[in-house]
């Protein structure tokens, strides 16, 4: 009797999860459809499919600039946030020190904060400092939100890391730098890689911070929003879909690399 009830509950949970996953991807599919239909206005069912708007989007000079801005911001954010977060994660999880709990809470605050309000507050602050907003200030804004996230991602890996390994290396006479390079980093690589992937993708898709802090420079999400509010063209869903597919491809490739890194780290841990 108990097992029958259990099987039924498990079936319901599976069905519910499948339903929610479908609902999550439904609007993304709608966008993909709208970008592939011929004609200026969207109507369903689609009468004629065409790659016309994809072609126009691909060739547009305006969009090339947007893509360059988005890639540049995301790359800089990735490199800087991994550097910040690597040390941040050690402070968060590795060392027992007096201010650690306060540090952990301070780190969470930017995540527990509405992003549009953070963007507006930063705009005010840049203005008070006399800095005019541009893609560079958008990088700073992204960092304020993304560094804490990446720190948490790396910290999870640090928690599973045994400090005894580091101590053993230093007892055997290894220098600090040598220990870092040969013991700490190889074990933490999977976490650092995940953190970098998160940083790039979160920056790539970020809309509220870019909207208020990028000034006259535009990113892909910011441009899409301006066209949604005024002047819809099928280039909006077309570019949206391209951006989504790029993120999906990166996530897939990044996931595969992480799998390899983890295998290597496990192997090393077993040998060592």
């Amino acid at each position, binding site marked *: 009797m108990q097992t029958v009830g259990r099987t039924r509950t498990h079936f319901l*949970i*599976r069905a*519910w*999860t499948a339903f929610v*996953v479908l*609902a999550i991807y*439904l*609007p*993304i*599919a*709608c*966008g993909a*459809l709208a970008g592939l239909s011929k004609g200026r206005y*969207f109507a*369903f069912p689609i009468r004629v499919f065409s790659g016309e708007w994809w072609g126009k989007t691909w060739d547009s000079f305006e969009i090339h600039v947007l893509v360059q801005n988005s890639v540049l911001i995301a790359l800089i954010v990735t490199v800087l946030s991994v550097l*910040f977060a690597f*040390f941040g994660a*050690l*402070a*968060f*999880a590795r*060392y027992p*020190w*007096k*201010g650690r709990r*306060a*540090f*952990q*809470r301070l*780190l969470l*605050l*930017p995540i*527990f*904060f*509405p*992003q*549009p*309000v953070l963007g507006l*507050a930063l*705009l*005010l602050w840049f203005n*008070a400092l006399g800095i005019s907003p541009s893609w560079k200030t958008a990088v700073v804004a992204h*960092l*304020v939100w993304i*560094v804490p996230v990446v720190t948490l991602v790396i*910290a999870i890996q640090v*928690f599973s890391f045994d400090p005894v390994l580091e101590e053993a290396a230093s007892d055997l006479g290894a220098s600090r730098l040598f220990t870092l390079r040969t013991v700490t980093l190889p074990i933490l690589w999977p976490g650092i890689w995940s953190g970098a992937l998160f940083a790039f*993708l*979160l920056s*790539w*898709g*970020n809309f*509220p911070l870019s909207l208020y802090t990028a000034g006259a420079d535009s990113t892909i*999400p910011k441009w899409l929003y301006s066209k*949604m509010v005024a002047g819809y063209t099928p280039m*909006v*869903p077309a570019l*949206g879909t391209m951006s989504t597919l790029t*993120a999906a491809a990166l996530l897939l490739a990044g*996931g595969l690399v992480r799998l390899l890194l983890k295998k290597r780290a496990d192997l090393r841990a077993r040998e060592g």
Partner: protein
Amino acid sequence: MADTSLSAPEAKLTPGLRASLPVLVLLIAGFLAPLVTVAAYAFATPKSFDVFRSFTLANFAAIVDPSNTVWTSFVWALALAFCCVAILLVICYPIAFGLNKVFGKWSGLVSVLFVFPLFVSENVRLYGWVLFFIKNGVLDGALKWFGFSGGPELLYTPGITLFGMVYVYLPFMLFPMTLGIAMIPRDLVDAASDLGAGRLMIWREVELPLAMPGILIGALLTFVLAAGAVAEAKILGGQSVITITQDIEVAFTYAQNWPMGSALALILVLIVSGLALTAMARIDLDKILGKR
């Protein structure tokens, strides 16, 4: 604060403090300083840029003035955020339970499916719903194709705004909740069951209290983010609801009344951070993130 010890010349720079310095500097310069600026602007002369040079309560007086209807935006934002949290608790619990106890080797893949939308900007996803619900859109067109008279008019209502918020903030509830449920030791549930406790009783007396820290973090995170939401009300809600963040944005942009925008933002920040800090004080992060 940890960094005060730096000023003392004999203070020792422990490895932990040293490692925390880059992030500390970033958060002080990029998070605390902007908030201080907002607080300073909130007390500046209305419609001026006299920050740090004037002090007045005029902005707050204008907000509490009975003729001002800005309080409706606060009520809308907080009420929508509250409903959003309540709905997400119900939607996410079975999924979080499934990720821990039912899906087995598939749970990694299912998690990725739920993480991925975070990397697609919310306006793209919300616009997809506009294409779904709009006249001659996917729902309307499909129903007509099947011979019905067409879809219901759902767009540009408060209800669809709430729907958009539930949709966007789902992962922020799901993952903390999943971490929380992962903290329930299996043998404790088995022990309760061996001692004759029913399933509902086990859930209420054992599982729920143990999973509470994760559920609490999820609820808090969703509430805070939803209280500051603006894109849902603009894109899906067609401004049928004005949330508080939109009022703040208007004050900062079209109205060029930075002191007023700052005063509104300060009130929102106080509500949000008050909640965040109280709940965070009761939570052990080491345990939730899996310290051995």
